[in-house]
């Protein structure tokens, strides 16, 4: 049993922590207030290798592993959950499937640019009436000569407004359910793809979440990602890694809530002493720290399993479930510790509270995670 990080992992953690502290933290609240996509920061993350952590060096990435990815994600999310979401989609939901299922040509075309942070990708699975039940999606793709023609509407697509490449899941066969789905790589310049409504969200305000419209969208035949009819497999295997990323993001948000709360509790005085001297506050802090540690351990275990090439669906779901509920709970406690000041935008815990909620919803709701976990135990 070895709980320590390797020298390389400590270095990655330190690089991510210092970059986050110097470049992201000072502007995080402003990015949130202005709903502004952090173009320069994303580029900086790309230069450090954080937009393609697991992309091999041959394709312009860092060639590192899931543990490094989880550590970096926590540090970025500690400073800004929106930036972490942008990074997570690019790494887990776009680079990863291109690496695993892409042809050599597709890898060479997309990975170096995506890993550099000069462009980002997005993931189009959800539809207005196909959320948790993703296999019921209705977008279609039919072959017309040397082009695929895609039609449908995708919903809640993170990064869509800025994205260069869209991983789109569409139905290529008449068969219902998971079997008839295929994955495609669509570029923003392909005819017939457009970004629709930009959603007005509760949190993650520095990242865009949009509707994506496909109207006779024509893409080259070679832009099929993976085999025809195996798109759902691509989507699901992508999600194991994605859930590790979201778990790490949630740990980062929870840690932000804890660290801000500790700082505030020591300095805020009531009844003649710092509120940190009251047991009511101490117990909140103790419980936050304990749950955060447990969430981080679950997350790193899932990441480690994936690095060993082992199946980690159960562990990734447990990590995602526990870490996201910890983030929501810790942000809730954070606001409570700050009291009235926690409810206003002058202090960051208000943002953590809004940002934390989405981690219980996207990349599989808490209910879906519980289904996955129960199915693993009961089947």
């Amino acid at each position, binding site marked *: 049993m070895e709980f320590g990080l390797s*020298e*390389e992992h*400590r*270095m*990655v953690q*330190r*690089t991510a922590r*210092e*970059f986050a502290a110097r470049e992201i933290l000072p502007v995080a609240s402003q990015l949130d207030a202005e709903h502004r996509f952090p173009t320069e920061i994303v580029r900086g993350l790309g*230069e*450090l*290798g*954080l937009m393609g*952590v697991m992309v091999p*060096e041959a394709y312009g*990435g*860092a*060639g*590192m592993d899931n543990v*490094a990815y989880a550590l*970096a994600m926590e540090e970025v999310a500690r400073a800004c959950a929106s930036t972490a979401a942008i990074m997570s989609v690019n790494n887990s939901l776009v680079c990863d499937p291109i690496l695993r299922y892409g042809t050599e040509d597709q890898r060479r075309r997309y990975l170096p640019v995506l890993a550099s942070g000069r462009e980002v990708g997005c993931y189009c699975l959800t539809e207005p009436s196909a959320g948790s039940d993703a296999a019921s999606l209705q977008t279609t793709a039919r072959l017309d000569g040397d082009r695929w023609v895609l039609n449908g509407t995708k919903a809640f697509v993170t990064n869509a407004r800025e994205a260069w490449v869209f991983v789109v899941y569409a139905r290529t066969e008449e068969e219902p359910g998971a079997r008839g789905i295929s994955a495609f790589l669509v570029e923003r310049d392909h005819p017939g793809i457009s970004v629709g409504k930009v959603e007005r969200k509760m949190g993650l305000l520095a990242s865009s979440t949009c509707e994506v419209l496909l109207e006779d969208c024509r893409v080259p035949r070679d832009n099929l990602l993976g085999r025809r009819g195996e798109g759902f497999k691509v989507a699901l295997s992508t999600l194991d890694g994605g859930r590790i990323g979201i778990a790490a993001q949630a740990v980062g948000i929870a840690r932000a809530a804890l660290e801000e709360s500790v700082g505030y509790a020591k300095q805020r005085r009531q009844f003649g002493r710092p509120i940190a001297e009251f047991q009511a506050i101490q117990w909140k802090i103790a419980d936050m720290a304990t749950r955060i540690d447990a969430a981080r351990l679950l997350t790193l275990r899932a990441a480690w399993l994936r690095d060993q090439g082992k199946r980690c669906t159960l562990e990734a779901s447990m990590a995602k479930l526990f870490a996201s509920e910890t983030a929501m709970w810790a942000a809730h406690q954070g606001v409570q510790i700050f009291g009235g000041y926690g409810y206003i935008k002058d202090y960051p815990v208000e943002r953590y509270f809004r940002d934390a909620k989405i981690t219980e919803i996207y990349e599989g709701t808490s209910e879906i995670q519980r289904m996955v976990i129960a199915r693993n135990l009961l089947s």
Partner: protein
Amino acid sequence: MDVVVCVKQVPDTEQPIRVRPDGSGIDDQGLNWILNYYDEHAVEEALRVREKHGGTVTVVCVGPPRAAEAVRTALAMGADEAVHVADPALEGADHLAVARVLARVIGQLRYDLVLCGRLATDDNASVVGAALAEYLGLPQATAISKLQIGDSLATVEREVEGGVELVKVPLPALFTVERTINEPRYPTLPGIMKARRKEIRTLGLADLGLEPGEVGAQASRVRYTRFEPPPRRQAGQVVTPDSPEEAARVIVRFLQETAKVL
């Protein structure tokens, strides 16, 4: 332009530093060890010299085995080669002894320039760089805030009281750098992966032909007798005057009567 950079591993001062109960030193339980900030700037400056003038950057470190991580960090930033002198006999070596070991290592390397941090954030001594220049017989300038390399001559700036001192120094030379000299790069993830494949040459005193009697604890002129934590900071006084004039009066009275600085 071949540059040698001396680096030290120090405790991360963002965490609380505790003195051992018996006063024999710093409690190293739970400390994070990092590359000294000033040395990060020295590495950065060396990399910039290499980018502009070509050549190599070699990192040299004297320290226990754990210090290899600081060396690896410098390699991850982009240094080419590294030498790490780790020998149990160096436990208790003082600054001059460390400088003698560094001088022995660097004397065997090819170099045009030696860079050090102005000080290490553990004991803030500012001794090793200057002593090393003496042992190597090199001209030196300390605490430089700007470095320009010309033909066989370096022009450096030093921030002095009320201005900037411009010094021209013939090469080879040794400089210790101030933190204002540059903004160090972060080790990138690809850099960290490349550093893993670079070799750190680890040497003992015997490999350098040095005896513990020359550079170990026995040869040291400095002996630490006792460590004490600084006195606890007293809580500040808060006054809530009714007007700015009243506030000024209270502060002036405090400065005259309590602090006795006016």
